[in-house]
């Protein structure tokens, strides 16, 4: 399946014809990674549908959108698993999932579960001045960072947003030199030091593995 990042951002991903028992209801920013894991592990019992990745910018919209998608699909699947962490909902997504009787990924956000929640929480005290990007966010840097922050129109605002950050950490899920290059360029644009860290899929893989 060929994925279009702009469609994942704006519309998400509609599930293909049902073949699996388990529906993964995910953030559009995770579609590439989940499909790569599905292929690599032969998880044919899982189908994937994604909500628009742009909810990353409006976390208050996530719980209601998840609820709507769960209610729409729950009769068709034995299990629905929500592939979101808290993602800025301040515990409201967890509460919504509990109310709906579905499980979700542990952790505060994808940066944490890609790093591994335990490892992320260990470095959190020293690394709270880091700004993180994943593969998807490097590719979609303008749509998720530069434009919504108004930096395309008002570059003078950059230091109001990023003045307290010290470095950009690119958490690489894959080894693609062009993404490394682009992430470095993103760091330069934000006036931050650059660090690339290969995380692979972290806790995302081990979590999805538990879904029989």
């Amino acid at each position: 399946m060929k994925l279009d990042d702009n469609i994942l951002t704006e519309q998400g991903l509609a599930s293909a014809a049902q073949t699996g028992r388990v529906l993964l209801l995910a953030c559009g920013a995770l579609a590439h990674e989940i499909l790569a894991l599905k292929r690599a592990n032969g998880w044919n019992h899982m189908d994937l549908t994604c909500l628009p990745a742009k909810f990353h910018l409006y976390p208050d919209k996530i719980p209601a959108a998840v609820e709507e998608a769960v209610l729409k699909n729950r009769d068709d699947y034995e299990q629905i698993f929500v592939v979101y962490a808290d993602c800025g909902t301040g515990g409201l997504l967890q509460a919504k999932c509990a109310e709906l009787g579905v499980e979700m990924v542990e952790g505060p956000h994808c940066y944490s579960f890609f790093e591994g929640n335990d490892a992320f929480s260990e470095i959190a005290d020293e690394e709270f001045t880091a700004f993180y990007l994943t593969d998807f966010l490097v590719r979609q840097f303008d749509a998720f960072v530069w434009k919504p922050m108004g930096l395309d129109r008002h570059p003078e605002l950059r230091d109001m947003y990023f003045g307290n950050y010290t470095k950009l950490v690119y958490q690489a899920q894959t080894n693609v030199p062009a993404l490394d290059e682009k992430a470095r360029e993103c760091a330069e644009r934000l006036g931050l030091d650059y660090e690339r860290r290969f995380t692979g899929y972290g806790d995302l893989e081990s979590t999805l593995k538990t879904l029989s």
Partner: protein
Amino acid sequence: MDEEDDIILSELPDDELTLQMHDDLYDGMKEEIDEGVNILLGRGWAPYRVLTEALVAGMTIVGKDFRDGILFVPEVLLAANAMKSGMSILKPLLAETGAPRVGKMVIGTVKGDIHDIGKNLVGMMMEGAGFEVQDLGINNSVEKYLEALETEEPDILGMSALLTTTMPYMKVVIDTLVEKGMRDDYIVLVGGAPLNEEFGKAIGADAYCRDAAVAVETAKEFMDRKHNQLAAG
């Protein structure tokens, strides 16, 4: 706009000038705001009047439109920069002319949190509303908050967090205040994107404030109650 359509601020009467300053603030036009402030001062306006009628009133419109989803963060920041610039002219004059002081607030982002845009907006709007604000900056430990409370003796403690991972630290601060028997000495207001009213109640804050305008309104209400209690006691 044609050159001949340019508005000459100094030629506008007071009422039109203040309305024009509201527009300029809305559009984040720092230089025009500075010019407007200086014109009004030159016409004999008291600094406090310039602050409230030209700047705070204009920023209140910005705040409402932000709340209603008409304006977004970049536009609010530009407006805030313009207001800050105007305030920097007024601040020394306000101190000289003895503007009314509504109360005092100590504010800072919690430990591990460097996101200070919301905190800075709240601080600025609180100052505009007549509060004295002691800004502790970012990444504040419980010890730093306690030290500031003891030395500054504020009426209000404001804590801000943008991250799900840092917001629980607010409870650490409040629990420490309770342990030390200091909790009732302060009005505790909390804010930040992932917070909500329920969270504010659960950690024992007096109120959760969803934006800078609400923070100002809430702070004023609590100060009124405090004064009423003192008067009754």
